[in-house]
């Protein structure tokens, strides 16, 4: 296994490298930086909403910019690059090939991220990560809006280039002795999510271009004053971004497929079920996009079609949950930190999905749409499932990558605080939404139930914040000064279940 940090290397060597392990490391550092930046924005937002009236943010425009950049950052600059980090690092190793299929293209795809991130953060647009017109055309202040558009454009291209690399590496470069059915499930998760990216992203690329030309006044795609239709943007956006949420969750489920069998000391219940579930989920993800648009005035038939498409994805997700539970059943489970995060993540995944079924049911969505229920719902996915799976996986590969062990007690405290905090924030927000509080609001009327629930949520957010500081300290300290790990079996799981992959970085 590649031991990154035991021998110091010049930083320029890593930055100019095209080797997949170095690019994985670059994606990792980038994604974790933005986890903390986006998380800091979240804490500021929750501090502001602790009480009605202005607390720490002076005006609503600043608040609107903060939640826009919070969402944009955590999705595009944390979750996606983190998945790319794991994929770049491990996919070539898992298919027993020397690197990604196109190493130079791989480096280019990574290096598009810093300029895009700079555009987004220097601009600090206010129109939500949805950027929907007509507001984003006629009312959103520039140049922030245009910088956001360019930033997202660049990130989309980066995603597509990365997807091409994953698909070709897995399908064409895998070892001749390895059949496609034997490819590990984590690699399958990158294959399927990359296929989704190839199909879904171009639609949003088109929408971004149309948004830009509309803003310039040279077209009228989405501007009713020029004969356009704002709903057209909604379709284009959600046609990309509903499948995109599966691009986010599928690698995290793949990561859980690495952790759970190993820490249960049992093989996966059904490898072929896992493959089937990934493939089915990625296809069905394209059939539900307009469930985000039930309130736009769609006909009864349209809504019904998308409700069916949404419900159809549930069995595929359920197959993964079954696979995990069946794997753990009768296993000799070791609840080390990575396993806690994975199992906690599955529990929250189930809760998130259950809330999603409520949203899918047409009449119920009219209670929850654009309220804090939705905020609670999707955060159970992005934080409770994807971030939990990702953080657990980070703890898991930490000894393999650094050659040292992280502090197990701190890791467990990190999990417990994050789990409690996540439940406090996001379960509460479901109830808050049922009481009617809208999303994206700088302030709210002093309704007693709203105040109480906002306070519970804010306390939960601060607990998560504290846990993340513990995490940061653990990661930094242990990388340099942690106990030396036995890289054959750092978790003392016993013979057959150690990390079976090998890598060779030419710089070592």
């Amino acid at each position: 296994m590649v031991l990154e940090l035991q021998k110091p290397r010049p930083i320029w060597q890593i930055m100019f490298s095209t080797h997949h392990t170095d690019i994985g490391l670059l994606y990792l550092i980038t994604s974790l930086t933005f986890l903390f930046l986006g998380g800091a924005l979240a804490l500021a937002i929750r501090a502001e909403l602790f009480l009605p009236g202005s607390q720490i943010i002076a005006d609503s425009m600043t608040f609107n910019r903060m939640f826009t950049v919070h969402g944009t950052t955590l999705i595009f600059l944390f979750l996606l690059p983190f998945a790319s980090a794991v994929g770049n690092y491990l996919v070539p190793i898992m298919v027993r090939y020397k690197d990604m299929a196109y190493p130079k293209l791989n480096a280019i795809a990574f290096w598009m991220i810093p300029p895009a991130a700079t555009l987004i953060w220097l601009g600090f647009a206010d129109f939500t990560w949805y950027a929907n017109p007509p507001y984003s055309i006629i009312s959103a202040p520039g140049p922030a809006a245009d910088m956001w558009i360019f930033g997202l454009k660049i990130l989309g291209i980066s995603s597509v280039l990365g997807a091409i690399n994953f698909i070709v590496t897995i399908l064409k470069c895998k070892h001749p002795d390895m059949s496609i059915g034997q490819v590990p499930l984590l690699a399958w998760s990158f294959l399927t999510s990359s296929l989704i990216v190839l199909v879904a992203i171009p639609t949003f690329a088109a929408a971004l271009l149309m948004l830009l030309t509309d803003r310039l006044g040279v077209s009228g795609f989405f501007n009713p004053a020029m004969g356009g239709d704002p709903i057209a943007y909604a379709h284009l956006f959600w046609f990309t971004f509903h499948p995109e949420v599966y691009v986010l969750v599928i690698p995290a489920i793949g990561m859980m497929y690495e952790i759970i069998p190993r820490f249960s000391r049992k093989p996966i219940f059904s490898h072929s079920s896992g493959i089937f579930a990934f493939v089915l989920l990625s296809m069905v993800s394209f059939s539900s996009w307009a469930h985000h648009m039930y309130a736009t005035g769609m006909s009864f038939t349209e809504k019904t079609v998308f409700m069916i498409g949404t419900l159809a994805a549930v069995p595929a997700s359920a197959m993964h949950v079954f696979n995990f539970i069946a794997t753990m059943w009768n296993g000799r489970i070791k609840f080390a930190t990575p396993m806690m995060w994975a199992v906690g993540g599955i529990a929250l995944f189930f809760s998130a999905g259950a809330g999603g079924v409520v949203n899918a049911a047409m009449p119920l969505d009219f209670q929850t749409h654009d309220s804090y229920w939705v905020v609670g719902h999707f955060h159970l996915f992005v934080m409770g499932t994807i971030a939990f799976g990702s953080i657990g996986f980070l703890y898991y590969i930490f000894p393999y990558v650094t050659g040292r062990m992280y502090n197990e007690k701190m890791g467990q405290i990190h999990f417990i605080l994050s789990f409690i905090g996540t439940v406090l924030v996001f379960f509460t927000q479901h109830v808050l939404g049922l009481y009617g509080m809208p999303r994206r609001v700088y302030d709210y009327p002093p309704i007693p139930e709203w105040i109480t629930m906002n306070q519970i949520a804010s306390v939960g957010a601060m607990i998560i914040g504290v846990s993340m500081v513990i995490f940061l300290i653990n990661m930094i300290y242990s990388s340099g000064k942690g106990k030396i790990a036995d890289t054959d079996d750092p978790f003392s799981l016993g013979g057959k279940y150690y990390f079976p992959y090998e890598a060779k970085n030419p710089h070592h």
Partner: protein
Amino acid sequence: MGHHSNWPEWVYIGVVVALMVWVGAEAWNAERLVEHIPADAEVIKVTGQQWFWSFEHEDGTKEIGELHVKVGKAYKFEITSKDVNHSFNIHDYVVLLDAIPGRVNTVWFAPMEVGEHDIQCREYCGLIHYNMRGKLIVEEAEPSS
């Protein structure tokens, strides 16, 4: 691969699919009933704009920010916007539908109790989205002579 039996997984998937079919069927039926607008519903034109709601009754009466209706009557909202997307929401009555410029969206309700309820905007529309609120006032019907 494992030599365990597969029937638990098939049963599980069967249960999940049955549950989804049930949710779908119930939702389909409920929405079908909810969307059936009574023929005698009185039209109220609702216009959203940055950052307030205005209303026009069938008899030409206009209101801004406040909407007065009579208990026990059915009303049909014809909703549009003058500028950006908004969303007309009376949460207590589960009235929720986007106000989109260039388009009219229709939703109905029939308040059965006298009282006051909040009107809010449920689609981000900029600076004062958070305070684009109003009041629905449901009053006693005039006694017919």
